[in-house]
């Protein structure tokens, strides 16, 4: 296996997890051979030592397989000198011929704050293009917009401690149990400790919904109705904080009047949301009578054509009750990415300038002076969707993508892959060589190898405004470099050397901190002036810090909460109620596309799997791209659990495995977006979404695209496990997953078992092949051995009978196989009881093992944990374990 070269001194390095916005502290202990031991940092205030399944498996993602290690120009390896020269020359040429605003940057919430800062500065101050947007646009820009409309600033008012201190936590459009597992653990702990009630609002009954005290499975897109109804109810119940509303807000009357027109009472709310009146009433009563309420929301709210209004409908209820910035109370945007917050602080979005400053003339002038910028921009640029549409139209001629995979993740992703072909200059700074985005090409394509997690060094900010260090603990492989250094070198070649002469990340951080404090005087929420003169040594050892952190602030620890004093960042210091628009999905279903397609995540994968896909543990939980559907819909559409179906929209199609679940509403489909062209033949779910942007935030709707579903019929289905990655013939459906000791492919094909046997056996010539063939029944299996070592294993069955691979995976992980195991490989029958599909990824505990443990008398989650370790590390599988309990008990009773 490919690995980092030996690092010098193996010591424990404190760093921060690169996945979600929780921002957990991680202790990395390099093993000296390119890997590292991973543990939670007990001193980090986000996680206090806990890690989720993804964080725990970080050590499995460090291999150099599929890493981009050298610069290349048009597919040919190039020196840094030549590659950077080509980039600078290309940018200069485009700027000269088409103006600087023909240049665009597409950045990432995966970038460190320092990288973000330098990219933003180069584009907006020196190249002079406003078109700098980021994948955070797809993630939480509606929350940003809602914050700014309500507070005058993009401020998260509360902190994680509020989750410990709340009596009610309302989760809106958030599968917290899977997507922010460590915060979910805090919520569950609070429930155990103080009886906190969990209310979950989501069209899907997710694992989070399974854990809820009250689950509200509302119609897609009707969150605004529910919170409008709540505002009306709060007003009529006399539950408002009149003092706060009078003294510190404006717009209440208008907002209430609008809310009344949308949802005049409980009955109307229930009718519009499709919820039982009793449930709506119970939620309203609970919210009304509980002072300590946190309403946490994420992509279900944000990724919507009305996402900003949804956010404001929620914030309205908190402003009206004065439940904001107080212990255990407030609206709380759970951010998706590890450094979306850092990107926002820097201003790395098209509708921001820098450091929470926008485009008021004095702000533009202030930033220009601070940067000594020759080409400062004066207005907003194009947001992600518009930006890529401009690429399609040929308006953008040069695009520089850093650390993100828009060819997978953007709506209408297929169209974007096509559009990139027309670019004069296409630059990708990437850690991964085989991402769909790195594989796309423009007329001139430059790939620049960037450092990955564990190599790069800088800061990230989590959902509670806490700035933590990501530290380097591995040597950079090949010619990989820090993003800020790459950008600075291009800046130098464009003649801006003086403004980009950074000796290290600390120097960039100091400049960023100075800008936040520059002529601030309390007018801007984001102020970390206290660390603007931090020394290199102090930066190196910096503990997590929460902002604001002003130079003259009393506390060096920053402020945990804002706005309890009623002082907001609007010109009149008052918060704004927003009269929201009546909710309606941007696109209605039709006869051709009768379903509403929702997209989202699975527990154990991150984004487009470029890292989590390397971990066999994380690849076990969901190993094929899938679509969830209600049982009645499945029956009506003729699709069956485990079968394949074509899900199509006006923009694309994917072939996905069917998961029938009554957690879905009728009429809705759900598909996870993680699979790319590198991990599945037809699993690019992003290509299906229309992505109509929210008019305020520009965030595209990714959770409600009209779609159709039909069975995808294949003659044969099977799997192939190999030591190294293999490709299957064109035209076959496949999905790849990492397994212990190799790589696994689920596949489907129109070929007969006889043909498949011929084609695939041919891949393993020279090896000893053991096989089983019953071609009359379309069944074929083989195992290839190199000596006694199993190097490949195939199972094939008729299209309607997908073979499972759990026991074969276990055999693949073993060094020596007993004869009984070799026979089981051919028979597909259990040698002994297999563990079943993996439930607990941390400890690799399967469904069957857990079921057996329960059957053997472990009748609680705790008892299961004691007996088989499942659920005892990150705990994100506890909902699934709990779900097994009543079923298993019922079976026992039967």
């Amino acid at each position, binding site marked *: 296996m490919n690995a980092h070269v030996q690092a010098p001194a193996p010591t424990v390095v404190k760093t921060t997890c690169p996945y979600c916005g929780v921002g957990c502290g991680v202790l990395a202990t390099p093993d000296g051979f390119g890997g590292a031991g991973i543990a939670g940092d007990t001193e980090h205030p986000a996680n206090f030592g806990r890690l989720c399944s993804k964080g725990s498996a970080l050590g499995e993602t460090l291999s150099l397989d599929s890493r981009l290690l050298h610069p290349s120009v048009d597919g040919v390896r190039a020196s840094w000198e030549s590659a950077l020269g080509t980039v600078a020359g290309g940018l200069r040429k485009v700027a000269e011929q088409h103006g600087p605003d023909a240049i665009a940057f597409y950045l990432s919430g995966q970038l460190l704050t320092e990288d973000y800062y330098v990219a933003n500065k180069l584009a907006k101050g020196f190249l002079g293009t406003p078109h700098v947007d980021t994948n955070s646009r797809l993630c939480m820009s509606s929350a940003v917009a809602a914050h700014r409309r309500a507070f005058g600033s993009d401020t998260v008012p509360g902190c994680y401690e509020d989750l410990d201190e709340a009596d009610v936590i309302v989760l809106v459009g958030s599968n917290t149990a899977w997507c922010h597992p460590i915060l979910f653990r805090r919520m569950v702990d609070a429930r155990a400790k103080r009886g906190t009630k969990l209310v979950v609002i989501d069209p899907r009954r997710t694992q989070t919904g399974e854990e809820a005290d009250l689950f509200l499975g509302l119609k897609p897109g009707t969150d605004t109705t529910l919170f409008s109804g709540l505002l009306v109810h709060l007003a009529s119940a006399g539950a408002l904080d009149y003092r706060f509303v009078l003294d510190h807000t404006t717009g209440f009357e208008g907002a209430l009047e609008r809310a009344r027109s949308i949802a005049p009472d409980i009955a109307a709310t229930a009718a519009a949301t499709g919820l039982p009146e009793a449930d709506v009433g119970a939620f309203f009563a609970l919210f009304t009578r509980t002072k300590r309420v946190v309403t946490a929301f994420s992509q279900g709210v944000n990724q919507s054509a009305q996402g900003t209004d949804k956010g404001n409908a929620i914030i309205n209820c908190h402003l009206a009750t004065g439940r904001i910035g107080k212990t255990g109370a407030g609206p709380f945007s759970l951010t998706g990415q590890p450094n979306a917050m850092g990107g926002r602080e820097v201003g790395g979005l098209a509708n921001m300038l820098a450091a929470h400053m926008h485009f008021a003339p004095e702000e533009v002038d202030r930033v220009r002076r601070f940067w000594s910028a020759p080409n400062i921009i004066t207005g907003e640029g194009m947001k992600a969707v518009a930006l890529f549409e401009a690429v399609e139209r040929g308006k953008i001629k040069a695009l520089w993508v850093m650390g993100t995979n828009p060819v997978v993740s953007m709506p209408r992703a297929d169209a974007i892959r096509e559009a990139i072909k027309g670019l004069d200059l296409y630059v990708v700074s990437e850690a991964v060589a085989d991402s769909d985005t790195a594989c796309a090409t423009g007329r001139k394509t430059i790939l620049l190898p960037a450092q990955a997690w564990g190599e790069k060094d800088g800061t990230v900010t989590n959902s509670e405004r806490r700035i933590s260090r990501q530290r380097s603990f591995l040597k950079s492989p090949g010619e990989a470099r820090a993003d800020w250094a790459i950008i600075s070198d291009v800046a130098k070649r464009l003649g801006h050397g003086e403004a980009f002469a950074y000796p290290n990340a600390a120097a960039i951080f100091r400049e960023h901190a100075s800008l936040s404090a520059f002529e601030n005087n309390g007018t801007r929420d984001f102020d970390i002036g206290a660390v603007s003169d931090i020394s290199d040594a102090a930066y190196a050892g910096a503990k997590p810090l929460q902002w604001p952190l002003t130079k003259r602030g009393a506390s060096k620890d920053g402020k945990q909460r804002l706005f309890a004093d009623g002082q907001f960042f609007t010109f009149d210091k008052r918060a704004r109620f927003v009269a929201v628009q009546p909710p309606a999905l941007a696109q209605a279903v039709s006869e051709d596309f009768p379903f509403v397609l929702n997209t989202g995540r699975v527990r154990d994968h991150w984004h487009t799997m470029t890292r989590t896909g390397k971990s066999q543990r994380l690849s076990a939980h969901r190993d094929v791209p899938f679509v969830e559907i209600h049982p009645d819909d499945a029956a009506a559409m003729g699709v069956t659990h485990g079968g394949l179906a074509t899900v199509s929209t006006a923009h694309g199609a994917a072939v996905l495995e069917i998961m029938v679940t009554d957690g879905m509403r009728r009429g809705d489909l759900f598909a996870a977006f993680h699979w790319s062209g590198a991990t599945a033949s037809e699993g690019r779910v992003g290509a299906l979404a229309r992505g109509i942007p929210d008019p305020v935030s520009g965030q595209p709707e990714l959770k409600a695209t009209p779609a159709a579903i039909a069975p995808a019929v294949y003659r044969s289905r099977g799997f192939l496990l190999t030591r190294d990655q293999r490709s299957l013939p064109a035209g076959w459906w496949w999905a790849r997953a990492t397994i212990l000791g190799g790589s696994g492919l689920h596949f489907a094909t129109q070929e007969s078992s006889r043909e498949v046997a011929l084609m695939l056996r041919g891949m393993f010539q020279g090896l000893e092949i*053991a*096989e089983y*063939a019953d071609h*009359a*029944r379309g069944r074929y299996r083989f*195992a290839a051995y190199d000596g006694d070592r199993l190097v490949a294993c195939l199972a094939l069955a008729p299209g309607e009978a997908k073979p499972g691979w759990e026991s074969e995976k276990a055999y693949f992980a073993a060094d020596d196989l007993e004869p009984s195991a070799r026979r089981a490989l051919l028979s597909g029958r259990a040698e002994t009881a297999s563990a079943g599909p993996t439930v607990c990824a941390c400890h690799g505990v399967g469904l069957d093992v857990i079921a057996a443990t329960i059957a053997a008398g472990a009748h609680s989650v705790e008892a299961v944990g004691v007996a088989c370790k499942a659920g005892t590390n990150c705990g994100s599988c506890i909902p699934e374990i709990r779900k097994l309990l009543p079923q298993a008990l019922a079976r026992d009773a039967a």
Partner: protein
Amino acid sequence: MKERLVVIGNGMASLRFLERLTERAPGAYDVTVVGAEPQAAYNRVLLSSLLGGEVDEAACAFRGLDWYEAHGIRLITGAPVTQVDRENALVMVGETHVLPFDKLVLAVGSLPIRLPKPGMDLPGIITFRDLADVAAIRKAAVTGARAIVIGGGLLGLEAAVGLARLGVDTTLLHVMDRLMERQLDHHAAGLVKRAMESRGVRVLLKADTAHVEGDGRVERLVLSDGTVLPADLVVMSVGVRPNAVLAQGAGLDVGRGIKVDDRMTSSDPRIFALGECAEHRGMVYGLVEPAYEQAEVLSRHLVGEEAAYPGTSLATSLKVSGLPVFSAGLIDAPDGAETIVMSDPGLGLYRKLIVGDGKLLGAVFVGDIAEQGWCKTLIRTGEPIADHRDDLMFGRVHAPDSQSLAA
């Protein structure tokens, strides 16, 4: 006075017949048994083990002389019968001995075939059929000797493995392109070949012996392609033919063997035949199982019970020097039939089922033959196997019920 029953031959078929007869009707007949070999009936199946030194001669014995005595059976050994005089109902033993009979059983077995090639009468060329052959082979198989076994049937394989076990440089020649071609398909034969080679036997296929040379004793064997193989010892195991000499001389109906009906009765109602010398419904068997079935039928018939021999379905289950091999019914699929195959060469495992119209037509197993009895039943009964395909291939998961096992 009791009827006089004379049995010619004291091999395995003969002994089984005598056991069954004396169990059913002790003392019903006045029985005389005449055997050509110097010993009483022994287990011929163990000859290869004896050759290889895995067992001693005592282990091959079945019944002691006291058993014959206790059951009132007169046993004459080392005495070849020279003539059957039907007219006078006499059996002539050697030049002098005369045995009158009322009923006569011929259980004279078969004779090993010698290739009709030049030099086959040289000393050092030995057949592999009885204890005397084994003794001769062992005597010739001195350290450093080079042995050639001609014949890739079961017996040849066993002789070769036995020789190899003795530390003799052993080459097995087979004229066909695979070993045991009547019982095994190519794949199974390949596994058997691999097993032979792993036991130190060099195997040459499509090896057609032209002649043997030597100065007063075998020194080399020449193949038809001109290959010369040095040899100190040649074991001939190219098949057997039913021993029908006596019957022919007596004017009984003889085809390849002595023709018998379903009661093992020859063309003379007083005379019966069983075992490898008998031809029943055109079939001549070379295995012990049919012989035992015939012995059963004949013993019943001779005590007045209703009994008929229907023939034995063609099945072979055996161990080629420890490697279990089973074959029944068809070996290769005819047009329109399906084949189900499992093989793991590393485990020495192979199974093939041939299925037509949902019925089992044939089976070839190597390495693990646990389901052989079931296969034989299914082939015989023609019961649909749709629900059993996986169990037949991979073994039954649950304990089989005893009825379906009855083969």
